[in-house]
């Protein structure tokens, strides 16, 4: 056999492998696809009932989201922070924890990054930018650490503590940008960060910054962490069976603190990315609820980092397309929230899908080849 033939056979095998992976993940994501279609169908009914044309509205949304390079840029910009918070939720979930504090971790991460970005000057980019990002990681990590320690030492349930800590973060940062750190003017915001702390923009005119690349890298790193490291192994072991993990000598308290710290750190970079890449200053309440969207995205992504990338981009598209829809057709922006809520609702109702399948729907997708 010649080298060429071997090469081509190897290539063929690789293609087949990728193909089976793709079809496999498509099959696995049927419930999500069904949920999205169902959400848009019901959204159409809502639009009709309120006197808008669904075709026109969705058309505008589609064009706004992916119609041109600007739209795509905005879609990815919107997807970036949601992907970070989705990864944060997902990671804690693998350890059996519900981190509902991604919103607060994102805010504090962004705030810390802003402080470093503003207060240090005269540093070269390759020092200042990493420092600002590290500050974001640190801020998020602290916000993950506190509820984790409260749980490990006092048994305080993380759902309560993480959710409450989000409000603390919101009001504390709000205080700072309204009083001590407020820039001159009417807007509650800080002065801009130094140019040396800015994350570079990727596309002209759009706000798409290198933070998007960081978010994809974070997703890949999360896959690696969970599947290829001893830390990931222990986190999963604790999440699936804490008793067995304890019996095997795994320190479950240490594990859950670590998981929450990493989780918070990921959300923290998300906040830093927004500040350093998009706004370039800290604006009061800059997050329209990215933390909560992250939870939804993680669920729609099947609690899988790679699935979360797809789901985050979908949510980003709904958000950025929604703005175009609002401007060109006058449909209120609230429809976006309705659509997102419906997607989550349908994903959370897997039995519905089972019912459809029983009735013989989607055979073309589910049949094994």
């Amino acid at each position, binding site marked *: 056999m010649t080298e060429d033939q071997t090469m081509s056979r190897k290539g063929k095998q690789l293609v087949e492998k990728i193909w089976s992976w793709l079809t496999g993940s498509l099959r696995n994501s049927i419930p999500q696809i069904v949920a999205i279609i169902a959400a848009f169908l019901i959204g159409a009914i809502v639009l009709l009932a309120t006197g808008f044309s669904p075709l026109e509205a969705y058309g505008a949304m589609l064009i706004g989201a992916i119609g041109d390079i600007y739209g795509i840029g905005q879609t990815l910009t919107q997807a970036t922070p949601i992907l970070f918070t989705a990864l944060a939720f997902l990671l804690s979930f693998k350890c059996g924890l519900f981190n509902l504090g991604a919103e607060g971790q994102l805010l504090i991460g962004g705030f810390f990054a802003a402080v470093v970005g503003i207060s240090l000057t005269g540093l070269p980019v390759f020092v200042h930018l990493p420092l600002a990002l590290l500050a974001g990681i640190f801020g998020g990590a602290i916000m993950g650490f506190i509820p984790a320690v409260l749980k490990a030492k006092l048994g305080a349930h993380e759902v309560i503590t993480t959710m409450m800590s989000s409000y603390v973060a919101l009001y504390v940062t709000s205080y700072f940008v309204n009083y001590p750190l407020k820039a001159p003017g009417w807007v509650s915001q800080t002065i801009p960060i130094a140019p040396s702390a800015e994350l570079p923009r990727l596309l002209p005119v759009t706000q798409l910054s290198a933070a998007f690349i960081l978010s994809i890298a974070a997703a890949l790193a999360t896959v690696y962490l969970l599947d290829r490291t001893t830390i990931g192994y222990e986190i999963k072991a604790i999440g699936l069976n804490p008793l*067995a993990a304890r*019996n095997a000598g795994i320190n479950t308290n240490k594990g859950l603190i670590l998981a929450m710290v990493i989780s918070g750190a990921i959300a923290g970079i998300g906040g830093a990315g927004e500040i350093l890449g998009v706004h370039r200053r800290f604006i009061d309440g800059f997050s329209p609820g990215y933390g909560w969207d992250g939870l939804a995205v993680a669920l729609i992504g099947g609690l899988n980092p790679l699935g979360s990338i797809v789901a985050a981009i979908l949510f980003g598209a709904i958000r950025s397309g929604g703005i175009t829809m609002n401007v060109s057709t006058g449909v209120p922006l609230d429809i976006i929230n309705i659509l997102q809520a419906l997607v989550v609702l349908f994903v959370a109702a897997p039995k519905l899908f089972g019912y459809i399948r029983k009735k013989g729907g989607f055979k073309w997708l589910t049949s094994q080849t």
Partner: protein
Amino acid sequence: MGNAVRMVAITKSFPGTIANDRVDFDVEEGEVHSLLGENGAGKTVLMSILYGMYKPDEGQIFIKGREVKIDSPAKAIDLGIGMVHQHFMLVPSLTVAENIVLGREPVKNKYLLDAFKAADETRDLSKKYGLEVDPTAVTNTLPVGVQQRVEILKALFRGAEILILDEPTSVLTPQEVGELFKAVAALKQQGKSVIFISHKLKEVREISDRITVLRRGRIVGTVNNKTTSMEELAKMMMGHEMPSIIMKDHAKQGETVLRAEGLTAFNDRKILSLKSINFEVHQSEILGIAGVEGNGQSQLIEVLMGLRKLEKGTILLNGKPITNASVHERLEKGFSIIPEDRQKTGLILDFSVSENLILGQQDKPPFAEKLFRLNLEKEGEIAEELIQEYSIQTPNKETLVRHLSGGTQQKVVVAREFSKQPKFIIASQPTRGLDIGATEYVRRRLVEMRDRGCAVMLISADLDEIIALSDRIAVIYEGKIVATRERDRTNEIEIGLLMTGATND
């Protein structure tokens, strides 16, 4: 007499396995019919289909000659089928009478429970079938044997004509088994049909009229108890002759490996459950801890593993105190454990076979590398080796442990725990719920570990097991070691009496 139940060509498959393959099964009125087979043979699945918990893929069910579709346990109950599960389905905080009438409570003033009537009905029922219970006792204060009686009465209260008992003896003491069998005989007298699921030949022989043997989801045959023999049944069940347990002579006892002095500890309810326990386990020795369950065995294991706080006492490993060492440190120093409940504490069911095989060693070389990297290649390699060496019957190393049979799951635990060259092994109920083949396998491995120089502590509620394997036997009763005996200088009767607190040292 007619057929109470007839199941025809029942087929049920789960992803990856066929649990029942065209199974035919019938039970006559007033008959005790045993379903015999190893773990994973499909006995419980077949009966769960009859009880409406699973839907068969194919096949028909006839009750008293009429074809029926049983799609829920409620439907099964309506048809006069009752099932007593291996794990009881009682509300622990309710009284016996309340549990029995639950769902069909006698009421007064339309909405209020008539407690007196419930108690009376329970008393009548209990008298009628000779199943003695105290209607006003709170369920969780009762011994397991009595709770089982409550389960049976509950089924009878709902009008069961056909009673399914799923491995009813696995949780009982020998005395309780005797009482259960008396009750079964009484039920038969009253014309009830009883289906007895078991993998214990002796018991099946004792109470059955007919015996149906299942192997790997298929019927091997149905035989009349009077005309069959132990050997024939064992052959049908195993597909080969019954292997005998090879007990080697005493290995030469060596130095003390583990020494416990004055172990005292509370249980979760803050009741003193270990009262100054002393014992030693030597090199090349199996120390059996005999005792009826709930006499402090669980707490003793937890204390030894470092999972429960000691109030008083010292634990020495090779003469060095390890009383305050963490679980992790103890494992590092050569502790190894086969936990009582493999699914709850021994395995991670949603991890693969190979992931489970490295549990507890994931943070050590060769699995752990620089920068927390987990060497998956090494993990796979070692998994393949262990699957071979311990003949773990799994489709492959990536299979989730959840999908394996009980015996195979236990082999995964045994392979993991024995392959790490332990010095001290705690084996708690190591053969519980396993079939003959797997039981014999685990026992042989335990003896092998002893012969290689391990100190083994065997905790078992199965007296036969303790007698068969131990070099020395310590009897635990109400949190105390009441006696320690050389195996050769004692017998089942003496140990049995000590276990129940009948005699004291």
